[in-house]
């Protein structure tokens, strides 16, 4: 069976070990190529090392040209099956590759607790009981933190080609967005994230460059 990592323009691939150490190769379809490795059998339980094996193949490919990452765990019986999948969608896939050419994905996560501003004092607060004061302070801190996250976002947007807002999953996460940026802007983006982090006194964690997982929609599919 063939394990699939991602799609690229047809070009030679680097000597890289994929899942379980298997060498990667390509399955060509017109001027597109599916990057695969061949396996007799494969245990695809999603362990952390296996996920990183998949990821690191994509990162190597990304150094040499545009790549459309495929999620973990997709296999095909053989080359013919890969071709059947790609051929009818060739045009859309080529356009999707064009969209990410020379670009990378970065992620920004803003964590709440330390992103909070000093709590503004309100007149009349002294008439509240201690419980109410506590709840009001908590609410105001939360509002302040959300404002900071939005300000951080606004400062990053000028460096960005496209934004994909994520759904913050955990209560403490204020922002978890993905950005498609020109690779040439990567250093500037990181530098700005650093500045924002120290200025807000907050936990702004920027990771990347990632393969453009969040920017792979194919028109008409």
């Amino acid at each position, binding site marked *: 069976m063939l394990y699939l990592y991602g799609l690229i323009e047809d070009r030679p691939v680097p000597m890289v070990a994929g899942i379980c150490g298997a060498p990667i190769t390509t399955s060509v379809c017109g001027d597109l190529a599916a990057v695969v490795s061949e396996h007799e059998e494969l245990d695809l339980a999603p362990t952390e090392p296996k996920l990183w094996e998949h990821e690191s193949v994509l990162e190597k490919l990304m150094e040499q040209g545009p790549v459309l990452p495929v999620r973990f765990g997709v296999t095909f019986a053989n080359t013919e099956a890969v071709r059947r999948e790609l051929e009818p969608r060739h045009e859309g896939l080529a356009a999707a590759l064009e969209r990410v050419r020379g670009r990378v994905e970065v992620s920004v*996560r803003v964590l709440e607790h330390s992103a909070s501003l000093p709590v503004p004092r309100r007149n009349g607060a002294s008439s509240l009981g201690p419980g109410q004061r506590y709840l009001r302070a908590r609410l105001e801190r939360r509002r302040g933190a959300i404002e900071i996250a939005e300000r951080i976002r606004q400062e990053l947007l000028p460096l960005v080609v496209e934004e994909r807002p994520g759904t913050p999953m955990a209560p403490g996460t204020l922002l978890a967005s993905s950005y498609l940026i020109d690779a040439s802007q990567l250093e500037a983006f990181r530098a700005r994230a650093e500045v924002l982090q120290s200025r807000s006194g907050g*936990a702004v964690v920027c*990771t990347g460059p990632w393969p453009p997982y969040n920017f792979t929609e194919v028109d008409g599919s």
Partner: protein
Amino acid sequence: MNGAESNAALSPSSYVPLHEADARRELARQVTLVELLDRILDRGVVISGEITLAVADIDLVEVGLLAVIASIDRLATLSSSANGNGRCSTSTA
């Protein structure tokens, strides 16, 4: 984005209690793992080969993901109490 570097454990002789640098490094590692899981299991170009990841597996991973996110918050607290201003590292590739 290298998972390997993050596994560097302190040798017993150099062991110090978790403080700023360790907390920051650990925070960056955990966030990186969350970002990886979020992408690699659920995003990417839609290709309908045989998808071998069972729904049960994804559920398990999501449970792990929530645990990781919960620990991020704890780590960030450690990081901020260690150095007083809440800085944590910007993870780089």
